[in-house]
């Protein structure tokens, strides 16, 4: 009986303690005028704090806080200086950067051209899929040689194969400069425990794998890019928690639980008419319809441009937008967002929506549609549009990883697929290469299995051109060949919104949301 009484007493005490803890633990969130902290969210937990190995969106986002890049995307012009103050290209293979002389690592080490060269050599030497992607985006597919001159304060980059997009490539957060302390302890670098590794404005001061990360502003940092429109004070502390649900984000933003939140759906509309919040938007993904032209795959679209055109006529991109994106997407005229540099900006090469004309060719056709599993409304819309035009449609909606794998390596299993293209890199050539050139099996990224020598010629001319005007001319011509052949059909650009509550601000710079540009505006 004594034991029973003890149990009862213990339970009552425990409940009382819980109640007290619950009642005493809280405090109202501070507004911008009272705080030096920004609370924000990540959809998924960062996997690594090593910028060179960053592959997921969250990895790339946090890399921007801790590691500065040579160049940055600007607000009033496309590029502004980061660690480099001047830059020039004598050809698509030779680049030269003048490095600022006042930048330091978090441990006080000066960031010299040699430090930057060592960081790039680490990146290009890694056998890691994330690093190899960054290497390809920054320095192309050939070998890169880095020559540092600390006395002159310059870094020369020489490429074995021409790559005209280097200047944009070195704005990528994965090319962030890792200081010598990080290169000496790469395991600590990946875990975020080497304070001296950081070259950017913030250092990681706390993190729990899968849960949260806290960044603190460096006292000695003064290498902010020369943005002209970014106003306010950088936060002394940035708390990032993992929170993937859009409804919860909206509720937290309204209650002050977070200060800045990202939205991909109509939850963003809760804030658009409210003066207490500011909203910026940017292209997140480009959705395209890809026609499989792989020889011998059995695809109905192989060698049949008229049928491809008929599908494009049967589908209304705005209907797709309404079905899949709550109507929040924006028009797209080419392989990626119209906001991209060197992207086609008008719809003259697109087929008009004309289901009656489409049905003449589509009636009686059997079409296998491949789409990822979490896109049911969009899949339904596409399938029903084609069925309405007389086609018989078989929908396959595997898991996203299987969807990717099937598109790249199993052309015998699909005729037409919905492809989601990352629209945050800003590099149009990556999207062009999805629809021409070597296929995945051949070491390339052509997911449509097209044979388009004219387009390839324009693409390569763009990659080899030193001046940006010639680059764009050729990249635009390559896009035109893709659209004229109806190798793909642009559907819609998925536009995401960042909402900041009163007292806080966030910025999109040349189409890129930069976490390090979050500010407290009082």
């Amino acid at each position: 009986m004594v034991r029973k009484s003890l149990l009862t007493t213990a339970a009552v005490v425990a409940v009382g303690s819980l109640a007290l803890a619950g009642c005493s633990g809280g405090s109202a969130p501070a507004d911008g005028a009272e705080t030096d902290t920004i609370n924000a969210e990540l959809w998924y937990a960062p996997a690594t704090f090593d910028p060179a190995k960053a592959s997921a969106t969250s990895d790339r986002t946090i890399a921007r806080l801790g590691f500065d890049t040579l160049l940055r995307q600007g607000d009033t012009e496309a590029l502004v200086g980061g660690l480099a103050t001047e830059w020039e290209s004598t050809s698509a293979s030779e680049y030269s950067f003048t490095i600022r002389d006042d930048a330091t690592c978090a441990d006080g080490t000066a960031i010299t051209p040699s430090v930057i060269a060592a960081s790039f050599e680490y990146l290009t030497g890694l056998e890691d899929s994330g690093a190899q992607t960054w290497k390809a985006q920054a320095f192309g597919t050939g070998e890169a040689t880095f020559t540092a001159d600390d006395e002159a304060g310059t870094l020369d980059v020489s490429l074995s194969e021409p790559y005209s997009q280097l200047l944009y490539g070195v704005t990528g957060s994965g090319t962030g400069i890792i200081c010598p302390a990080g290169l000496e302890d790469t395991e600590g670098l990946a875990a975020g425990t080497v304070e001296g590794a950081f070259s950017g404005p913030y250092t990681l001061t706390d993190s729990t794998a899968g849960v949260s990360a806290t960044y603190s502003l460096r006292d000695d940092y003064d290498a902010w890019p020369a943005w002209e429109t970014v106003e306010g004070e950088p936060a002394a502390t940035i708390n990032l928690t993992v929170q993937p649900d859009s409804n919860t984000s909206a509720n937290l933003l309204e209650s002050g639980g977070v200060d800045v939140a990202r939205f991909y759906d109509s939850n963003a509309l809760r804030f658009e008419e409210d003066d207490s919040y500011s909203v910026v938007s940017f292209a997140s993904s480009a959705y395209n319809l890809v026609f499989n032209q792989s020889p011998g795959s059995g695809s109905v679209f192989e060698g049949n441009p008229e049928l491809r055109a008929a599908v494009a006529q049967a589908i209304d991109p705005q209907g797709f937008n309404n079905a899949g994106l709550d109507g929040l997407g924006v028009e797209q005229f080419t392989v990626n967002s119209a906001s991209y540099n060197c992207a086609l900006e008008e719809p003259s090469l697109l087929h008009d929506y004309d289901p009656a004309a489409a049905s003449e060719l589509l009636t009686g056709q059997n079409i296998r549609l491949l789409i990822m599993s979490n896109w049911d409304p969009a899949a339904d819309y596409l399938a029903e549009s084609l069925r309405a035009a007389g086609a018989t449609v078989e929908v396959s909606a595997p898991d996203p990883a299987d969807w990717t794998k099937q598109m790249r390596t199993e052309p015998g299993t699909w005729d037409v697929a919905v492809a989601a293209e990352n629209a945050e890199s800003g590099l149009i050539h990556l999207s062009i290469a999805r629809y021409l050139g070597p296929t995945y099996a051949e070491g390339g990224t052509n997911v449509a299995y097209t044979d388009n020598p004219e387009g390839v010629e324009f693409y390569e001319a763009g990659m080899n051109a030193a001046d940006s005007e010639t680059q764009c001319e050729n990249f635009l011509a390559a896009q035109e060949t893709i659209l004229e052949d109806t190798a793909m059909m642009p559907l819609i650009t998925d536009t995401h919104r960042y909402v900041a509550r009163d007292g806080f601000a966030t910025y999109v710079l040349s189409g890129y949301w930069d976490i390090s540009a979050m500010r407290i505006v009082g």
Partner: protein
Amino acid sequence: MSTQTHESSPVSGPGTPVLDGPPRAASLGGAWRRFLLRRGVGLVINLALLVIVTFLIVQLIPGDPATAIAGESATLAQVELVRTQLGLDQPFFVQFGTYLLGVLQLDFGTSFRYRVPALEVVMAAVPFTLAITVAAVILLLVLGLALGMAVGVATRGDRRRWLGGTFNVVTGVISSVPVYVQATAFVVIFAVLLRVLPPAYSPAYGFGIAAILPIASLTVGGMCSVARIVRRETAVILEQDYMRTARGWRLPALSLYARHMLPNLLTTALTLSGIILTALLGSALITEAVFAWPGLGGVIVQAIAIDKDYPIIRAAVFVIGLISLVITLVIDVILGLIDPRTLGEKRG
């Protein structure tokens, strides 16, 4: 009840074995040894099955981990590089052997995504999950007991029939509503409309205040279930002779109900709470999603849906299973202490 067991001594007769020495302490000790041995062996077998089944089940999760980890921009060569680095190119039995050897050393492998030991990631989230589930179980046990007893006493002998009917309807409805629906309703009422509590976890709030709604949503349904059973048990106990006698002696209400009735209700309530806690671990994973609670739920969902992170999934399922098994064992031990008949021995 243990008191009744002690009072009903066996009667000797022809063929009855003769007991040597002090029979009760010796047989109780033996019962405990056999109970613990039996449960210990059961625990080991269950854990072994858990480890094996978990290994096999994750292979059935759709999606290629190498493709998921390599990212959308990866070439096929990069995907294959990831596959090799993760050891997924090894034959099935080699992977299984490596896994078993690792588990014996409590090493579930390195997370595909985080590149740190999987158990480390899981154990970082476990305290968050346990904080709300254990608190919820304690609350639902105490509140369910209090509510069930109060209504049971108030309605004994068919008194206050309206109260009994209302109690049945209200608790029945509430306990039938899924936890995630209750959680969403709580967010709408207390966070969105009234704005008196945080809608979800955030560093902007204290841990305690952010935990109130998750704990409440896990508590309410279980509390109603416990209260319904306790109320019925209360009605039965109140009709027992010893309770009639106690009432006849005009014992004070506190003594009557707290000292004589409550201990007799604990066996049922504790047994039920063990079952509820196990179920709550599952519910908590969903509740965590509603409240952005940084527990095991988010870790598991990301591991399955996004990353195909086999080591994390295996470690998480193992830890949840282990918690469930250990809690069940602890509750059985407590029940054994309260009522030795539950040790599973036919005594006397």
